């Protein structure tokens, strides 16, 4: 198992290298210059040149990449051009905030969506199935920023139950910290229910049509036993893969939700860095997001044998 995990992570190294090189090159191909942005419309060519030299941006791309990559191998992602903060601790602190929201939201969404999807498949074409599919499609179709604003207006403004703006870390004040996280978690939770329910339903329907399910029913097994013992285990594979993809995707990109709820997470850090052309932060974030994506999918792969004994780490 450990060997499999290590091999999978090692296999990701070329991917990460490609990400590192492509992000480094692509971000520099976009017009815009961090020094010009920092100095604004009053900058003179001399002051821009001074600042570029101070930031090391006057050197050739090869030299800049060499310095950055050399530091990267030593575990140093550099310093933010804008805030002068070391990037790795910055990313980790922001990631922790985003991860809390994403992990809880996806976990809760899975708990609700997977059984609901199985039930919808079991009761295919019934009123319940139609209702669940309609709700799932609706939730999937609502953009997260709009859903977030609706929740904010309802729970924050109309009912006054939850704080509307700001963020308090759970470490600083656990109770208030939780209150500030409820709405962003709820937004993602509702959205992901739509995604996961549809997948759980589709994969369960596929399995329910297989001969061994008919055979199980013919044996006289109860519907619950057929569903949970025979159908669910086989049907859960694709949904589990989707959970991995969703997690990998969200861990690096909930900037919209973070902006609506003033959460200082990783997504907002990345978006701000792109607008400010803060090259080291963009590179660090993208590399970290890619690494997280790979890691999450390795963990997902390692969990397959739990649901399907035919799949082994070997």
């Amino acid at each position: 198992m450990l060997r499999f995990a290590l091999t999978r992570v090692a296999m990701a190294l070329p991917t990460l290298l490609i990400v590192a090189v492509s992000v480094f090159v692509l971000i520099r191909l976009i017009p815009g210059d961090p020094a010009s942005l920092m100095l604004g419309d009053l900058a003179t060519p001399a002051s821009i040149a001074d600042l570029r030299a101070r930031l090391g941006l006057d050197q050739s791309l090869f030299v800049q990449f060499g310095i950055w990559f050399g530091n990267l191998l030593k575990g140093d992602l550099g310093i933010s051009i804008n805030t002068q903060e070391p990037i790795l601790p910055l990313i980790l602190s922001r990631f922790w905030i985003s991860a809390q929201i994403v992990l809880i939201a996806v976990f809760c969404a899975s708990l609700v969506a997977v059984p609901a999807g199985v039930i919808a498949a079991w009761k295919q074409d019934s009123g319940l199935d139609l209702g669940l599919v309609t709700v799932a499609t609706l939730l999937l179709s609502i953009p997260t920023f709009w859903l977030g604003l609706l929740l904010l207006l309802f729970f924050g403004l109309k009912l006054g139950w939850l704080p509307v703006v700001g963020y308090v870390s759970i470490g600083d004040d656990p109770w208030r910290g939780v209150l500030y996280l409820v709405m962003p978690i709820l937004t993602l939770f509702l959205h992901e229910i739509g995604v996961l329910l549809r997948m759980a339903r589709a994969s369960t329907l596929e399995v329910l049509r297989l001969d061994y399910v008919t055979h199980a029913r013919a044996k006289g097994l109860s519907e619950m036993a057929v569903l949970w013992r025979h159908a669910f285990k086989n049907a859960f594979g694709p949904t589990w893969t989707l959970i991995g993809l969703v997690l990998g995707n969200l861990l690096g990109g909930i900037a919209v939700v973070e902006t609506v709820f003033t959460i200082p997470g990783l997504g907002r850090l990345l978006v701000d860095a792109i607008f400010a052309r803060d090259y080291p932060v963009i590179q660090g974030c993208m590399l970290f997001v890619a690494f997280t994506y790979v890691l999450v999918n390795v963990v997902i792969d390692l969990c397959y044998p739990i649901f399907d004994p035919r799949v082994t780490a070997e």
Partner: protein
Amino acid sequence: MNRLLASACLLPLLAGPVLAQSLTVAVQADVRSINPGVNRDDGTDDFALQMVEGLVGYDEGGTPQPLLAEKVALSADGKTYTFTLRKGVKFHNGAELSSADVLWSWNRYMDAKTEWRCTSDFDGRSGLKVESVEAPDAQTIVMKLDKPNALFLDSLARTDCAMTAILHKDSVKPDGTFDKPIGTGPYKFGEWKRSEYFTMTAFEGYASPKTDGKADGYVGSKRPLLKEVKFLVVKDPATVKAGLTSGALDLSEILPSDVAEIRKLPTLEVVTAATAVRQVLLIQTRDAVMGNQKLRQAIAAALDMDEVVAAASDNLGQTNTSPIHPGSSYFGAVEKQGHKFDPARAKKLLAEAGYKGEKVVILANKRPRVPSFPAAVVVQSMLQAAGINADIEVLDWATQLDRYNKGNYQMQSFSFSARFDPALAFEQFAGPKDKQPRKVWDNPQAQEKIERLMSLSDRAERQKLVDELHKAVIDEVPLIFMFNGVDAIAHSKRITGFKPWQSKLRMWEVTAAK
């Protein structure tokens, strides 16, 4: 009976504004640093200038006035400035201000290691050179320039230079790194949680230049009447609106498009004010099409500026086609005369220009609080109505700024940041394009006049030059000034004394009822 008397005494306190309340203010971006004038942007300057002060600061009209100095004397040859410091001014750590602190601060700024934004504005690289700074006694500072310069005090007062703030040496750690600003301003630095919020608290030992309760730019009455102010970073305008409505936020800048809606809310008040920021249409005079002066004049005549301004500013702005902002004492009868909307003249000029439908691309950005895009849309439609094949290209701000710096455009819907002195207002866009491609107006005669304006102190002479330059800009049309920026601030009705000024959220003389 005693309880009744006590209640009667407390009643006025409960009804009226109670001092030493705390406020939560939304800002759209975090500060870049707490090191004044070093790693900065407008929001960073705003926060810093609540805590630190310079020898001189801008008054409401943008004229530099004594602040930490009691008076400023200029020698007959125009090269020596003598600043007499105000007595009784204290730093946040309780130490009394003396000329030694001014000297220490100046030397720190002039040290390249400090990376102060404005070092090059005082060491001769940009023309102005301070040759020596001396402290003959504890209350006097003498600064000598290499030659007379009318902009010296203005340069000292510049907000992007953090007012050349006088800091206590304990602001810097023993290893030379910056710790926190220990200044003389009305508020003290509180706490900074990056990307979340920053706070400041009232400085009880503050010596206000005046105490009449009237805010006047960065001078005037500056009493810190709030206990604490928390600046919360809220990027989304919709969230700001929700925060203001719920009472979670006490004060924030809002979108002009939200003004009418928020004005209807019973708990909130909206105040608006024009700023010295200028919304302009830049024109690249070296472009094959736009180099034609008749075409540029036709464009100016094709624009119904009042309509453009009304649409782009949600009826909050006022037309101003001059580089000089209306709050300036140099904004006179000549400056009020600008481009005139005249479709017939536009058609005639287009014919004289030999215009044959060549495409004219207007660059714009969609930053939420900047009217670049809405202004471009209205301008495009008016130009099309006049027969000009105008198109819009939307870019992100970084790309647009890059194109501006390289001079790579035909037209841009752009904003010039505030410049108070007319010499600086003209210098911002005038100059040789060969050396500085970002310059918009390349006219050697005008350049000479601007240089004279920079060294000249005589008020009447200066006004004459300003008038001539204004007329030349209107005639040559290297760019078209449209209107000044508008601050739209919504605040809780429990707040009194807040007055928007130049996009700065001045928290002095502001009180809040409980």
